[in-house]
């Protein structure tokens, strides 16, 4: 660490010594950074290589040997033939489940969050922070403390084990996050922006729709990406609140990987895992800036 920071070492030393220690610093810096690049990429590389191998190839080679001969069969099996419990239908219908469930859940929670966040910055009554804190605490609640009543309630309203129930649950428990995102954004909007509209007699919702929503696109994107990633990657709610053919993709993936009997088809496991990870990975690659913003805000603020 000490050497690394020596990039701008004091000018007191002789020029050659400075240059040499600068070089050592650079080598160390890139060495450490390169080591971590390998650490992060290794599992992904291993997964990709394994997913294109035959089982014979897997048993004779190593995790880093190249597929010989490469095959796409594990991928087609993972997508349409792999066994989830007793049904051998592959990942695709569970993929669809998650999409059907996630799209409304992301939309609803983002919209409600935006409205809430805006309203919370407009509130005039006492203790606005206490109200926000009350909402925020929902983001930190471990779901183990609510799961049994949640399952019972979904049963009472006829949504037990269904995708609709899961979508409802994700919408509700997403609100603390989306509200926190929107609120922190609207706090930064100068009040002058809405003053003129207020003077002209525009009401609360009018100002929200025609002034606030258009300028809040970035935070809506953050909110959508954060919610989509969270919902897509969820396992606990899916496992506890759905069953059978209604399961979301992560539950199906876990079933493929952990319940197969006999010889374990590791190549199919890896193909299925990559397929399940793909949507959020693609989103991350193309909208990483928003993803990271949501991540830091989501974890720091709730």
């Amino acid at each position: 660490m000490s050497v690394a920071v020596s990039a701008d070492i004091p000018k007191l030393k002789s020029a050659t010594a400075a240059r040499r220690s600068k070089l050592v610093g650079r080598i160390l810096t890139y060495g450490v950074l390169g080591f971590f690049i390998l650490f992060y990429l290794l599992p992904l590389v291993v997964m990709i290589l394994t997913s294109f191998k035959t089982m014979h190839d897997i048993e004779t080679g190593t995790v880093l040997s190249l597929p010989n001969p490469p095959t796409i069969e594990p991928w087609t099996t993972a997508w349409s033939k792999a066994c989830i419990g007793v049904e051998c239908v592959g990942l695709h219908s569970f993929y669809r489940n998650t999409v059907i469930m996630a799209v409304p859940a992301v939309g609803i929670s983002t919209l409600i969050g935006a409205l809430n966040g805006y309203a919370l910055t407009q509130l005039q009554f006492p203790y606005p922070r206490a109200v926000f804190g009350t909402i925020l605490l929902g983001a930190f609640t471990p779901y183990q403390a609510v799961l049994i009543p949640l399952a019972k309630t979904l049963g009472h309203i006829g949504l037990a084990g269904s995708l609709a129930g899961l979508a409802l649950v994700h919408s509700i428990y997403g609100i603390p996050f989306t509200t926190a995102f929107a609120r922190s954004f609207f706090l930064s909007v100068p009040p002058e922006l809405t003053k003129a509209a207020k003077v002209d007699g525009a009401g609360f919702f009018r100002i929200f729709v025609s002034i606030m929503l258009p300028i809040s696109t970035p935070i809506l994107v953050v909110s959508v990406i954060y919610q989509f990633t969270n919902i897509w990657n969820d396992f606990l709610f899916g496992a506890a609140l759905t069953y059978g053919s209604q399961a979301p993709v992560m539950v199906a993936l876990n079933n493929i990987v952990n319940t197969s009997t006999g010889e374990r088809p590791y190549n199919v496991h890896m193909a299925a895992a990559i397929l399940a990870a793909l949507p959020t990975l693609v989103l991350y690659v193309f909208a990483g800036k928003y993803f990271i913003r949501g991540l830091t805000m989501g974890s720091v603020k709730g």
Partner: protein
Amino acid sequence: MTIAQSDASRPQRAARLRRVALRPDILTVLPSGLVLIVFVYGFILWSFVLSLTSSRIAPVYDFVGLQQYALLWANDRWIQSLLNLATFGIVFVTMATLVGLVQAVFIDQKIRAEGVIRTIYLYPMAISFIVTGTAWKWMLNPSLGLERLVRSWGWESFRFDWIVNPDMAIYTLAIAAIWQSSGFSMAIFLAALRGIDGEIIKAARIDGATTWQTFRSIILPLLRPAFFTAIIVQVALALRCFDLMVAMTGGGPGFASDLPTNFFYQFAFGRSRLGFAAASGIMIFVMVLAVMLPFIIWELRHERRRER
């Protein structure tokens, strides 16, 4: 609800209350506020009530006092899961924080391709714990995974069977969790490093401080809030860890890597002992609250200071 109460407690009247309750901003917050009050606070209360009953497969509302808690704390598997959590949490939080700090310090050295490197360091955060667990389970496979790879390089006696070794399985969870989320502390530390005023460091240099002295006595203290955030977030992650364990070890071998979250899940949904499971759920809630509540309060206070 809080609104109505705090207004009513004043020497003020129904008319004003009605006027306030019908304001659009309050109308907006109220429905989702009520839903959250039911689904978060109401359900926590409901879980607590259940934990005071002898409910098994279906809720029965007989009051048996703290009997379920007594059973819980006398249960060896619960104690084991807590000890596992402690091991996992300490290793994971310490390592993820240190790794993130080292990464941030090195990335902050005006390097090339910073964007690419940051993207690579953070991509695991976009992946689900089930996928991460699946990948690492395969890599750590004792006969076909990394062990065979290293042996193929000529180190014939190399052994890396932690995932099936009861003494070491919990550490494999920590490795995968560090892989998944150390990039997050890197992002926190990097943002904090970039926020430090360069003039302070220059001044220290002029006064003759060495690089290490500058780092230790000036930069590190300025990073205190970043440490705080990174550590709290990771402690919360550790307390909630469930998916990763399910996908990687299933709590095994035996109960060697079992965690409280899995204990809860097994008793609530596998064995249908609702009262007992609810008691463990409430204990998890208490643990998380003990960590998070001071943090939330600190955050909100901090925010108020900034506004002034």
